[in-house]
């Protein structure tokens, strides 16, 4: 059972990295940097429109963060 936190509204929540080993956190960090680098090169090579690039960066961060913040 992963450790959870209770906030002032009584909602219990945790996140993906809480309670994990330092190695697991390092793997997650490296994976995220790879994702960012991949997005960078994909944007430069394939996406010519800077506005769509901006949208992709923000939605990629949102997706990863939402996945990381577990209930």
């Amino acid at each position, binding site marked *: 059972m992963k450790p959870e936190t209770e*906030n*002032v*509204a009584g*909602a219990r*929540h945790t*996140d993906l990295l809480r309670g994990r080993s330092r190695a697991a956190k390092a793997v997650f960090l490296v994976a995220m940097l790879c994702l960012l680098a991949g997005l*960078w090169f994909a*944007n*430069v090579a394939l996406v*010519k*429109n*800077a*506005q*769509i*690039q*901006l*949208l*992709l*960066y*923000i939605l990629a*961060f*949102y997706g990863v*963060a*939402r996945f990381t*913040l*577990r*209930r």
Partner: protein
Amino acid sequence: MWQILYDSGGLKWPAYAFLYGMAGSLFMALSVILARGHNVPLRPRRVLDWSLGFLAAYIILSRLGSVLYQQPENYIEESFNLAAKGRATHIAAFLIAIIFLLVGWKRWKLNRLWACWAGPFLLAVAVGYIGCYCYGCCYGRPAEKDFPLAVQFPVIHNNHGRVVGAPAAVEQNKEGLLPPDAKHGLPVHPTQLYYVVLYGVLGLFVTLGAALRPRREWFFAAMWLYFLVRVIVDPFRSFGGDMTIYEASPLVRGAQFGFLTLVGAVWLFLKVLHRGDITKQTSYGT
């Protein structure tokens, strides 16, 4: 929106979208972190959702606002063009904002979230202006002789001999201010860096202040500071060639002070309406 400014040694540098993406991500991440410290009565992933919604609303309003700011007479036409010409960010941001409005209309428990957004908003604006500096937009008017902070943006010729790249150089070339073989634009005020410094410092202060006393008035203070910095820096900003934005659009200064008055009035109204420290309240929201 251009994607490439500095073509240094063959490396394409799509700094503008990247830094604006980082600015948005920084805003969402800081909001989630601060929300935990401020005991916002929402789950962290809900804070993230609301922050994305705020970001979407900000993008729409700032883009529509910039059209109003620069071309008030073409506002209706340009607003239509923003949607009609497939500007994907605005359309997506608009849809996201509508969805969030519909979802959150009756669950407005965000009093403390306003305090969490204030500092990150200013810091994200500062990071965004680094993107503007890399891209070469939002540039200043030509600097006085020997002005130590002046910068020159590169002039890049494409295969047809036309000047492309940084808007600073393109505009100065269009105005006939540059010789045909110029490698650099005229030395101009680095207005983007003025913004970066002012918004960065103010953002840090507001973040710290809101952490010590989490009140939603911080958010309105941040909005007020946002316009205040614009009022201070914009006289150094160019609006094509060596014309300042005020010479180009005499309405602008009046409009800015109008905005300031409006935001200040809303702030005072909410302050009067909402007496007391929200940290001592037991119910959150209205």
